[in-house]
């Protein structure tokens, strides 16, 4: 029996459990002896493991170095967001769903808000400027999310520089978010009927200089990774999943596009005016982790193209409204910044407190109970960085959702984890998971 305090064996109902701490494999192998136990080894990886992308628990059955069976243990980050949303107004719901897939907050908000707007039947009344700002924020968000995927994926295979430069660039995107929404993550900026605030002065210049900088920096990733023999040896033919497998398991996003099938909701089922932007759907034909990396890298270039076009359109829309005109729905606030901080502007205060009884009534009603949404259900998916993200919102005609369910691509894509990893080595499991890029906040909700 091992004398190592940390690596002792204990008996449970399922059999003996060993805690492996490294460099003690010989002792454990000796302890296992002969028989059933020696032939079947089940290893727990996570939920607190730096290479499993957050609190994901992997249950791996191994034979030597080969993984014979791989299963996921999820639910460690389940916070009951969907249930909580049933007890909040439709507008407050935005502050909840933005916290699901925390690397893609704007996409969560967008799909939920699109569903609410379809139920309200105000889809064609959303101001043009609000739609363009939504596209702009989503594409910036796609870049930051892909950067995290590449950065953490690089870190997990040991390429630390990829991580540090990935987070360096992501910081620039977060600075833009802070400038526009006041928050770096979990913005609750996209609201039913439009967006919370207009762009601050100088934002378009900042965005343009960011695009110019990214055009110089993105090729650095390509130079570092694309033809790197170690990088390719780790990624090529790892996590293989062909189109048939993707279809059977309901995979979307870069994993699906790495099989050569150019399915992208922005083209297949355009929303927010994506049909009016010039961009290409990126595909690769190897159906492996390397292909997914290349798809993501190329998608960032496409996002930059969309951001440039959106910035040009916004430049022509100075002072245009960003919230729907219907005062029974539009969130009643006009924020401005003063020496005492950010709060409602004096113009807005004068209007609701001194001039318009009706405006004050709308303000109180919308803030306290919110607007009513006609009974029905809607599902409007968007193309998130990880695939098809959709919110199924059901209304019973009240001021809060009867049910809001999210189809999170991380959850569906994670179903392919076993298929991608079984038969490979343990080190390949990490690469396969990183190529799916699951975000546990979205998986568990």
């Amino acid at each position, binding site marked *: 029996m091992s004398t190592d305090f940390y690596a002792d064996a204990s008996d449970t109902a399922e059999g003996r459990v060993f805690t492996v701490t490294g460099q003690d494999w010989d002792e454990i192998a000796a302890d296992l002896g002969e028989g059933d136990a020696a032939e079947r080894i089940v290893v727990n990886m996570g939920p607190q493991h730096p290479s499993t992308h957050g609190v994901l628990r992997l249950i791996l059955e191994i034979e030597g170095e080969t993984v014979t069976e791989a299963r996921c243990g999820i639910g460690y980050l389940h916070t009951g967001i969907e249930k909580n949303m049933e007890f909040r107004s439709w507008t407050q719901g935005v502050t909840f769903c933005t916290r699901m897939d925390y690397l893609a907050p704007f996409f969560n908000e967008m799909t939920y808000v699109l569903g609410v707007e379809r139920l309200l039947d105000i889809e064609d009344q959303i101001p043009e400027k609000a739609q363009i700002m939504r596209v702009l924020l989503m594409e910036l968000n796609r870049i930051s999310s892909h950067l995290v995927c590449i950065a953490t994926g690089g870190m997990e295979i040991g390429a630390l520089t990829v991580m540090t430069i990935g987070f360096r660039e992501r910081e620039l995107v977060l600075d833009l978010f802070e400038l526009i*929404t*006041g928050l770096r993550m979990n913005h609750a900026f996209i609201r039913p009927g439009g967006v919370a605030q207009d762009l601050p002065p100088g934002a378009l210049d900042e965005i343009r200089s960011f695009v110019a900088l990214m055009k110089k920096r993105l090729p650095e990733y390509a130079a570092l990774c694309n033809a790197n023999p170690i990088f390719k040896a780790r990624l090529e033919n790892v996590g293989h999943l062909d189109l048939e497998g993707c279809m059977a398991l309901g995979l979307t996003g870069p994993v699906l596009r790495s099989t050569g099938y150019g399915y992208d909701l922005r083209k297949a089922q355009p929303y927010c005016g994506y049909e009016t932007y010039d961009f290409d759907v990126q595909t690769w034909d190897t159906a492996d982790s390397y292909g997914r990396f290349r798809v993501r890298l190329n998608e960032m270039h496409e996002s930059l193209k969309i951001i440039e076009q959106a910035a040009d359109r916004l430049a022509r829309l100075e002072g245009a409204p960003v919230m729907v005109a219907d005062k029974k729905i539009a969130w009643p606030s006009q924020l401005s*910044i003063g020496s*005492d901080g950010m*709060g*409602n502007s*004096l113009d807005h205060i004068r209007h609701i407190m001194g001039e318009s009884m009706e405006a004050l009534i709308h303000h109180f009603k919308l*803030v*306290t109970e919110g607007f009513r949404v006609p009974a029905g259900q809607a599902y409007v998916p968007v193309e998130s960085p990880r695939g098809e993200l959709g919110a199924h919102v059901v209304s019973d005609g009240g001021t809060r959702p009867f049910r809001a369910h999210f189809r999170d691509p991380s959850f569906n894509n994670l179903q392919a984890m076993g298929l991608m990893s079984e038969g490979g080595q343990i080190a390949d499991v990490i690469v396969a998971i990183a190529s799916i890029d699951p975000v546990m906040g979205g998986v568990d909700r």
Partner: protein
Amino acid sequence: MFRKVVTEQYPKEKLPTAPRFHGRHQLNRWPDGLEKCVGCELCAWACPADAIYVEGAENDDSVGPDGETGRYSAGERYGRVYQINYLRCILCGLCIEACPTRALTMTNEYELADDSRASLIYEKSDLLAPLLPGMEQPPHPMLLGNDDDYYRGEFKGAEQ
């Protein structure tokens, strides 16, 4: 390796946040020192995290034996108890969007870390803006006219 590093030397060198940053809340005053908060509780209603607790009370204009009045704000009511629990607060800013008097604003202050849970429930006294020159500690009568004048924006107050 031969490029300039992007690191910031916090806390020696603190870079300012963006102007719209959602930081600690502040309860503002009119230029005469009266509180802007009228205890309407809209901030508490708007809060998705139930982090705000408000108890309103009536202002009292009757003059006491020492000439004092019970007027704290420029409306019928004022916020007698006002608490924000920063352990619950998600800093979404719906409260400041809900405030009909610009009593509640968000500052750019973000250094809120503390070592006890109790001290992170901010009371009204922790949130109220300091008295500036020319302001008088409430309770006192309205010094700027009737309450209509206050909300019509005749006094620019702190926003400028």
